[in-house]
C-alpha cells in the first residue's frame, strides 16, 4: 500500500453505544457542540452487554477499521449488573483479538456516562487518530463480501 493511500485514509469506526449512558453522552457531545471527526458510526444497543463479541468480529470482517464498545461505568448499569458481564467478556475477547493478530489499538471498550460528553469526544477522536496512523484493517476481512473497497491503491 502506498504512503499516499495511508495519508488519505479515512477510517471507519463503529461505536456500540449503550442506550442509557454512552448514547446520552454522545448526545451531550452533540448538544454541547463538541467537534469530533465524522468517521464514527454510532449503533445504539440497550446495554453494553448486548454486544455479542460476534458483532465485533463481524464488523472487522465487513471492512470496519476500528470498534469501540462503550457503556455505563461499573455500578451504574441501568440493568444493575449488565456491564460487569461486558467487562469479563471483553477482557477476554480483547486478548483473543490480539492473539488472532488484530492490532489491539483497533478495538476498545470504554465506560462513558451520560454526563461525559467531552469524554466521548476525546475517546472517539483519539481512536480515530490512532487507527488513521496504523492504516486500514487488513486482518480478518472477508473481501468477497466487501463490494466497495475503502481505499484505492493502484493510482
Amino acid at each position: 500500500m502506498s504512503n499516499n493511500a495511508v495519508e488519505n485514509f479515512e477510517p471507519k469506526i463503529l461505536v456500540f453505544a449503550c442506550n442509557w449512558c454512552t448514547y446520552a453522552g454522545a448526545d451531550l457531545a452533540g448538544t454541547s457542540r463538541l467537534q469530533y471527526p465524522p468517521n464514527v458510526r454510532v449503533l445504539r444497543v440497550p446495554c453494553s452487554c448486548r454486544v455479542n463479541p460476534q458483532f465485533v468480529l463481524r464488523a472487522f470482517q465487513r471492512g470496519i477499521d476500528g470498534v469501540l464498545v462503550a457503556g455505563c461505568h461499573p455500578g451504574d448499569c441501568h440493568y444493575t449488573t449488565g456491564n460487569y458481564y461486558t467487562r469479563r467478556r471483553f477482557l477476554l475477547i480483547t486478548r483473543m483479538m490480539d492473539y488472532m493478530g488484530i492490532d489491539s489499538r483497533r478495538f476498545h471498550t470504554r465506560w462513558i456516562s451520560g454526563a461525559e460528553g467531552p469524554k466521548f469526544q476525546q475517546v472517539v477522536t483519539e481512536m480515530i487518530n490512532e487507527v488513521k496512523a496504523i492504516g486500514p484493517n487488513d486482518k480478518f476481512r472477508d473481501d468477497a463480501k466487501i463490494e466497495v473497497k475503502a481505499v484505492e491503491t493502484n493510482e
Partner: protein
Amino acid sequence: MSNIQNEMRAVAKELLESGKATVVLGWEKGTMPYDSTPVMIRSAADVDKLIWDEYCLQNLSTYLIDFINTEDKVAIFAKGCDTRAYNRLVHDRRINPKNSIVIGVPCSGMKNPKVAAKTPEGAEVPMANACKECRYPNPVACDQKIGSDVTPWCTAKDFSDVEAIEAMDADAKAAFWKEQYSKCIRCYACRNICPACNCTNCIFDQSASGWCSKDVNASENQFYGVTRAFHVAGRCIECGQCEAVCPSDIPIMLMNKKFIKDIDTLFGNYEAGLVTEGTTPLNSYQVADPEEFM
C-alpha cells in the same frame, strides 16, 4: 489392560442382565488397529464386543444427549476426561444423571490415532495431544469404578504452546491463524464431538440470522473458530476431542487454551467439569474484577 477389559465386560453383563441398565456405551475394535470406535450394547450376549486398549480416545459422554428423550437407563464407561464431560453436561442440564450410570475407568493416557495411522506397525506411537497434558486421568465422579487409580503425570496447566503464539508479532499471528483456518472445511466435527458445545440449536445452523454464515473461506472459518472457542470459554474441559476429530489438523485447543489461560489470570483459577452446580467464569462476575476500560 486386559484385566480392565474383562471387568468391563463383567460389569456390563451384570448391569444388562439385572435390568439396571438398558444400554451400555463403551468401545469396540474398529477396522484398523488404531481405531477403537464407540459401541452401544443392548443385549448381554454382545458384551464381548467391549474392549479397552490405548486407542479408546473418544469421549462417550456426549452420546448421552441422544438418550434424553428415551426411557433408557444408560451405563457409560468413562475415563477422567469423560467424567468431566459428564459433569459439564449435567451442569448444563443437558442430561439427567438419574438415567445414567457412570462406570469410571482410570486411564493412563491414550495414543494418538492420527499419528498411528502414519506410523509403521510396531513402532512407538506418542500419546494424544490432550492426554500429554492431562491432569485428571482418574474419574472425578462416578457411580462405580473399575481398576485402580493412576498417578497423574501433569500437575499444572501447560500453556507453553499458547505463550509461543503470544510471543509472535501481530502479522505472524494473523498469518498463522489464517493458514490454519484456510484448511477448515466446516464439517463441524469439532462442534459435534464437544461436550461443552451442547446447544440444541447451534447458531451456526441458523445462517438466516445474517451474522454468521456457512461460507467456507479463511475469514468466515476464523469467525467460526473464535466464536466456538468463545462459546466454550470457561466451560471447556480440555479433553482435546475437537482437535482429535479435526480432519484438517487445525490446532483448535490453542484457541481454547488461550481462553483458559486468560480466565485463570484474570478471574482466578478455574477447573471446568469438576462440579455440577454453581456458576462458570462467564456467567458470573466480581465487582473487583480487573478494570482496564476506564
